[in-house]
């Protein structure tokens, strides 16, 4: 598993990406649901949407990932903790 997840409710998850994860496992992918993401800790990880440049995942950053859109996270040196809210 590339992350550990705590289900806070049906559509609210707290997810932690470990710094031990291999970069090869963090692939471009799409999700079925729209997602609202909030970064919970300071890290040197990056997030990248398709056809856009990567953005640093700083603590407190909130952004939306529309469903069926390619995106990926780029590994940093520390753990990354995020809050995900799924909407249909």
């Amino acid at each position, binding site marked *: 598993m590339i992350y550990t997840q705590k289900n806070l409710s*049906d559509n609210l998850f707290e997810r932690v990406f470990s710094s031990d994860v291999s970069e090869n496992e963090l692939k471009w992918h799409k999700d*079925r649901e729209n997602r609202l993401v909030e970064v919970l800790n300071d890290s040197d990880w990056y997030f*990248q949407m398709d056809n856009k*440049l990567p953005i640093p995942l700083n603590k407190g950053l909130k952004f939306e990932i529309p469903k069926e859109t390619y995106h990926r996270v780029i590994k940093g040196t520390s753990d990354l903790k995020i809050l995900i809210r799924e*909407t249909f």
Partner: protein
Amino acid sequence: MDEYILSEDLAVWFGKKKKKKGSKQPKGPWVNICRKKKGGGHPPCGRKDADKGAYPVCRAAGVAGRMSQSEKDSACRRKRKKEKNDGKSGKGQSPSPIKIKNYKKSKNESMNLKNIIREGINNIILQKNVISEELKYHFENNISITDNIFRHGSEKYFDIVNEARELHKKGYSFDEFDIEILESEVGTFVNTTEGKIPLDFPFEYESSLNEGKKKKKKDPPIGKPKSGGSKKWYVYVRNPKTGKIKKISYGSSTMTAKWNDPAARKSFAARHQCHKKKDRTKAGYWACRAHKDFGKNVSGRYW
């Protein structure tokens, strides 16, 4: 004479058996890295009809998994180029083996005179040309064109290659790996009856061509409870007020349902006030009716 014992297992090569702990033998089976399977990975090495298609470029699955997409592209391009140079294009030819490249570049490459001159020329070319934010990002972060930051096959991926190619034509110096891409036809498309096809680009052609034709993704089945999810069961319902689909997870995954025990059933129904649960968008509605969906031979009314 030195004795060399090869301790490799043929079944591991074919992916029929897991390799032993500590074994250096790569994980099988061998796959064709120039093709992609739908849903990820590569198809097995070899072709059903040897007269159709190009010679595959095969690597053990374990090795393929460690190669980046650009390394795979490079291997496929070199194979095709070697076949062309050896005059082995077309049917009935023997394969042209290619050398395995060591893709690791030395990180602390010393700045010799050649590099200083190269950098100077590059700076002059950059001053004379307007470059995109995206290509600038690559230069500023020392990301090569081979390691393109954009998704392999995306619009920006090809834009970066084409923009870098223009700079290369104007004399900007790239490393040998980048030049290999820039001197290929990556980023060029041809229009065919089946759609737009990228040249020199190993790609999942079928799925890319069909992408535009794909039907709109179906909604999940509404009102059909299933096992799994974050709790014991889940069901998708449409909220009549908003028209949106909502996923409802319900049922404790740590407790067992005692539907065939009348006392337990009565107690559950009373505790959860099942007779009042009429809103299909609430977990309670589905929890009170779970016996209908998942119970076996549950007789009588629940409450």
